[in-house]
């Protein structure tokens, strides 16, 4: 059974969707709540009949509350809006959907978003497991933080938003990119824990630099496990992307695995996009 969370939907809209989706979808309909735990849902929808700023803010809060899980957010509107949907997408919505669409179309679109993401194959876990181990090792050794690996999924069209990302390019036999994305609070907590100081003592420069060094350590440490495989790579110098709820994009053809980790009630993601080299070139 799929689970759908409706935010700010009237009884009439809730009833309509309930009838359309049938018994195979469990629907929870509530007023929007800023800090609600929504990780149990397969799909989250927000109803809005205007393009006011609070709609964008609500989408951003919902995206934050998904804790990097593969949970699409859909904006429901009464009619198709002539305005650009871009601001909603930039805030973290996957799609806007007009309730005036034919019922068959509504059902098809909603159900398509509730199909679970692809799980990695055994061969793909060969190169993902080293990144899971190395991420846990870096946090444990450098910051004395015991993190929990929660899940892995392949990104497809998932909107990945965060406040700070460390990016490192991989080249050589295998090629790709590894990205760590965190929200401010956890990023500050990690760096302050490494330095043994309070979060107030962490300068923006040290925070930026630190997140770059963390992705460098994660990738470098994973590399050791991939020696003599077709996933062996060389490290480049890391870069850091800053900006409140920025989005990390990848080329359309890339195969991006998202590793989700939790530390207490906070989460972060490591995205691994690694294309194996041909057998002859693999070290």
């Amino acid at each position, binding site marked *: 059974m799929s689970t759908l969370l409706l935010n700010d939907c009237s009884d009439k809209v809730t009833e309509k969707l309930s009838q359309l989706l049938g018994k195979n979808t469990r629907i929870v309909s509530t007023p929007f709540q800023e800090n609600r735990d929504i990780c149990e849902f397969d799909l989250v929808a927000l109803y809005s009949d205007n393009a006011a700023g609070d709609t964008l803010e609500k989408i951003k809060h919902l995206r934050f509350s998904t804790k990097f899980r593969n949970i699409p957010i859909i904006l429901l509107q009464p009619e198709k809006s002539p305005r650009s949907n871009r601001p909603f997408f930039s805030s973290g919505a996957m799609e806007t959907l007009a309730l005036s669409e034919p019922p068959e179309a509504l059902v098809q679109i909603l159900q398509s978003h509730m199909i679970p993401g692809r799980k990695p194959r055994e061969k793909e876990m060969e190169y993902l497991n080293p990144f899971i181990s190395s991420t846990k090792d870096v946090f444990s050794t450098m910051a004395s933080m015991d993190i929990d690996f929660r899940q892995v999924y392949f990104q497809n069209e998932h909107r990945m938003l965060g406040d700070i990302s460390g990016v490192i390019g991989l080249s050589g036999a295998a090629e790709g990119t590894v990205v760590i994305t965190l929200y401010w609070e956890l990023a500050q907590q990690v760096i302050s824990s490494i330095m043994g100081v309070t979060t107030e003592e962490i300068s923006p*420069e*040290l925070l930026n630099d630190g997140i770059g060094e963390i992705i460098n350590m994660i990738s470098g440490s994973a590399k050791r496990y991939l020696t003599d495989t077709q996933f062996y790579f060389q490290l480049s110098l890391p870069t850091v992307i800053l900006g409140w709820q920025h989005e990390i994009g990848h080329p359309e053809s890339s195969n991006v695995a998202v590793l989700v980790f939790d530390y207490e009630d906070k989460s972060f993601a490591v995205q691994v996009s690694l294309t194996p080299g041909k057998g002859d070139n693999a070290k």
Partner: protein
Amino acid sequence: MKVIVADDSMLTRRIVIKYLEPLGHSILQAANGGEVVDILNTGDSTPDLILMDWNMPVLDGFQVLQMLGKDNRYKAIPIIMLTSESDDANREKALSAGAKGYITKPFAPEDLINTINDILNS
């Protein structure tokens, strides 16, 4: 002891300072391999030890390791690589080129201190 810490990461340089200064070491910082060469060429005394990252801009750590190994003025300075390059091939490559120690990131402070003490006391 006078120690050069060469790493393009400010975080790693600060971590090293945090652990070494209380032990009485004097730290000089370099953000890339070129700055290591500059410090050596302009400094008024030779350092007792260099802690050096591998992947750095301008000159990487391995290039500096090779350069200093060929320079009679500096080849006696012990160099410890402190790097994310974790695979055995790079470790052997660095040790063959003259590195006296090889610490991989992430690192525990005691590993750093013990390695430094072993090398300075040998």
